[in-house]
């Protein structure tokens, strides 16, 4: 902790924040100089204005990975603090520890997992269904920049020493201004609000793209499963995210305008929990379903077989999505909603195991009798199945309401949701990045480094989190920064910490892999994996205008069967019109205005917020005035 005197005001700065500032002030200029030296400014300027789905997707991936590294560092900090009993690692005890785990959870979910998945959707889905871009390219850029603005705002909080500290769930009344006066949870509210808006708009975009921009002959039931998962996920987002929006909106009123929805004599803290989990549980499936889709495609490709039980896979996706809305109160078994409610939610929760089980068996049957190639994406897929099944088993254990009274808020729960979310989402993202990397950059990631990455990450993962089942059953509570000698927890926690650093090393191999591949990777052909779906018919990396000729699809995995019989896919002569590509800085500007507006609201600088609001309306005006469709319509309407 350091103290400064600035304009008669005493400023306290914890040394981790100072270290971050020093690092940022050293690295920032270095990066700027590097960009200038390499003459990369034109490239940056191009990306800042692009609306192309691959480029926007690439930016999603880049910033998603950046935030993933940051949130991962938080995880390592936590594990270091917990390595031995009564530890005093740096400053991360008490309130600081609360900030670290709140940041870790929020960033991993909203600023790492979500953008990484959306990035892969952006890159792969249009190509898989034969669309020439997302239905609304401009809106897509807006979505990305909103996500980035939210992420920047959230990280800004740390640099101003006011990180959120009420957990990623921000339970009330702790998160109201009665109990956490500093701006931390305001940052939480606004960062999630902005990025959530971006996610919602992405969902709209994906649905319209999938419903209306499929290649001729590509009926819904001929789509690759990743496209299906994206469709179902988008519908989940449409219902779940607006609820979060309103929950955050009400929390904002509680914090900024002195209402008391969630605290005080009149307020209802439990109402926040309901709203949060009505969003929060579907959110878990929003994270998992796309990963299921990725694995389905990968397993099928690298087993040289079509997906086993395609229709069962689709119906399971729908069922999981549907049931996902009826299980939220299983996060609230200990609240005291009564035996009827608890029973209902316990049963719906257990029901989800059925469609999920169907999917697991179908993946196994897809591999059965297949010619399995152990590529890096396939290894991640193979690691995913047992990992996720273990997460599912503990999920069913937790769904037993009576038993949950014991498990609740222990490391057992932490182990469970890391088995499901890392097991599906993170492994799925890694697999997806290795799999589609040729489409993104035109190169193939190095296999040897990929093996190191997968090996270290998966081994480290099980070391870290399998142990947590045991510490959890021994009663170790989550979100607690230390424990005592003589509680028999030392050995377990130490192993857990070692495992966490192995995962970190794995991720470093991944970063190294991206770097060396960029420097000197092997060029990829259009179809490096002997793929089955349409994305492998276009060049690597995918061109700005893919499908100059739109292929006609006559069955599932049409590309694969065409290759098998040595013919080419037929081409549609008169395809539906493509979305209009534009180059514009407007999306980036809009989001940055929203960012500044949020800062104005957080610190009650109403004038600033008002001015930004005005500018935002002007941006809308600019957008509608300079409509890119104008020139097109004028060409089609010469006589008016």
């Amino acid at each position, binding site marked *: 902790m350091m103290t400064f005197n600035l304009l008669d005001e005493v400023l306290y700065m914890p040394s981790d924040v100072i270290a971050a500032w020093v690092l940022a002030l050293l690295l920032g200029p270095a990066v700027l100089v590097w960009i200038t030296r390499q003459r990369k400014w034109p490239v940056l300027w191009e990306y800042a204005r692009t609306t192309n789905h691959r480029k926007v997707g690439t930016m999603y991936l880049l910033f998603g990975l950046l935030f993933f590294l940051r949130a991962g560092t938080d995880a390592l900090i936590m594990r270091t603090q917990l390595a031995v009993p009564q530890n005093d690692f740096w400053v991360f005890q008490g309130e600081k520890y609360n900030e670290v785990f709140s940041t870790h959870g929020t960033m991993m979910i909203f600023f790492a997992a979500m953008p990484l998945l959306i990035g892969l959707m952006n890159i792969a889905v249009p190509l898989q269904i034969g669309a020439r871009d997302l239905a609304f390219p401009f809106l897509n850029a807006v979505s990305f920049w909103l996500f980035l603005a939210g992420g920047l705002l959230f990280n800004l909080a740390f640099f101003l020493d006011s990180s959120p500290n009420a957990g990623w769930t921000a339970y009330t009344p702790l998160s109201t201004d009665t109990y956490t006066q500093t701006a931390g949870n305001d940052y939480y509210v606004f960062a999630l609000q902005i990025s959530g808006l971006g996610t919602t708009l992405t969902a709209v975009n994906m649905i319209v793209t999938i419903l209306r921009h499929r290649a001729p002959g590509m009926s819904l039931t001929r789509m690759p499963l990743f496209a299906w998962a994206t469709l179902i996920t988008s519908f989940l987002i449409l219902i779940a995210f607006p609820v979060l929006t309103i929950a955050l909106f009400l929390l904002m009123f509680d914090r900024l305008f002195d209402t008391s929805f969630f605290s005080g004599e*009149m307020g209802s803290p439990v109402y926040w929990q309901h709203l949060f989990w009505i969003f929060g549980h579907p959110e878990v499936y929003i994270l998992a379903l796309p990963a299921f889709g990725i694995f389905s495609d990968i397993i099928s490709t690298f087993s040289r077989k079509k997906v086993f039980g395609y229709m069962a896979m689709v119906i399971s996706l729908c069922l999981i999505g549907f049931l996902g809305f009826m299980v939220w109160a299983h996060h609230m078994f200990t609240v005291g909603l009564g035996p009827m409610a608890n029973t209902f939610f316990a049963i719906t929760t257990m029901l989800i195991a059925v469609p999920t089980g169907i999917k697991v068996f179908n993946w196994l049957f897809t591999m059965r009798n297949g010619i399995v190639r152990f590529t890096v994406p396939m290894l991640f897929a193979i690691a995913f199945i047992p990992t996720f099944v273990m997460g599912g088993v503990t999920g069913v254990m937790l769904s037993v309401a009576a038993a949950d009274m014991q498990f609740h808020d222990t490391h057992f729960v932490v182990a469970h949701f890391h088995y499901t979310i890392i097991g599906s989402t993170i492994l799925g993202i890694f697999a997806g990045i290795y799999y589609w990397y040729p489409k993104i950059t035109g190169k193939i990631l190095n296999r040897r480094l990929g093996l190191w990455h997968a090996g270290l990450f998966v081994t480290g993962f099980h070391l870290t989190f399998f142990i947590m089942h045991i510490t959890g059953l021994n009663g170790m509570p989550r979100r607690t920064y230390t424990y005592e000698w003589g509680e028999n927890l030392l050995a377990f926690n130490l192993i857990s910490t070692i495992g966490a650093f192995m995962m970190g090393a794995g991720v470093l191999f991944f970063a190294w892999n991206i770097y060396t591949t960029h420097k000197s990777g092997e060029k990829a052909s259009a179809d490096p994996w002997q793929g089955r779906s349409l994305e492998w018919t276009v060049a690597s990396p995918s061109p700005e205008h893919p499908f100059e000729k739109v292929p006609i699809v006559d069955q599932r995995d049409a590309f694969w069967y065409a290759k098998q019989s040595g013919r080419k896919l037929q081409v549609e002569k008169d395809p539906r*019109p493509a979305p209009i590509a534009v180059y514009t800085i407007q999306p980036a500007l809009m989001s940055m205005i929203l960012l500044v507006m949020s800062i104005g609201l957080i610190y009650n600088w109403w004038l600033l917020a008002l001015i930004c609001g005005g500018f935002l309306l002007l941006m809308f005006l600019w957008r509608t005035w300079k409509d890119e*469709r104008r020139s097109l319509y004028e060409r089609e309407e010469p006589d008016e």
Partner: protein
Amino acid sequence: MSNHADALFADKQIGFFIYLMVEGVMFGTLFATYFVFTPAATGPAPGEVYDTQSVILASACLLTSSGTLMIAEKGLANHNWRRIWTGLGVTFLLGTAFLVIEVQEFYFYVQDGYTLTSSNFLSAFFVLVGLHASHVLFGLLWMVVLACQSFRSLPYQLFKEKHKIFIYYWHFVDLIWILILVLVYAPFLW
């Protein structure tokens, strides 16, 4: 008209309808919030607060405005600028009247001591009805912009599309008002 424009507009229509669905979920959550906190255990009862007269007057304005917008819609189909401007103008005036009445209503409530923070019922009321009012305000600004667009030499198809999207929006805002009328005011007024 042309194949290209029609296809792009159909995309936009579906996208906008889906977006309105999102808004519907948001308003739905706010309705739920209102029911959770109304009537409040302490503080004023809804029946004491609400002012029948202004509610009826405001409703009359807004509900008619959905009808007058149809004049513009008709004009849009026939390429009749007089009708478009009349419809848009009358709708704008009715919308403005609604907003004025509502702001006045809020002002009187606050004068009577029924503020945002008096009770959770009032908080929920103000947030829900206030969000609706801000939608009306946004719609009014939108109409101004549309009117300005109509004086530019835009391709007619493009103007028509912009106008149509606004029509969907305005009817949606009206629909939410009917729900507010039925679910928020009616149970406590009559």
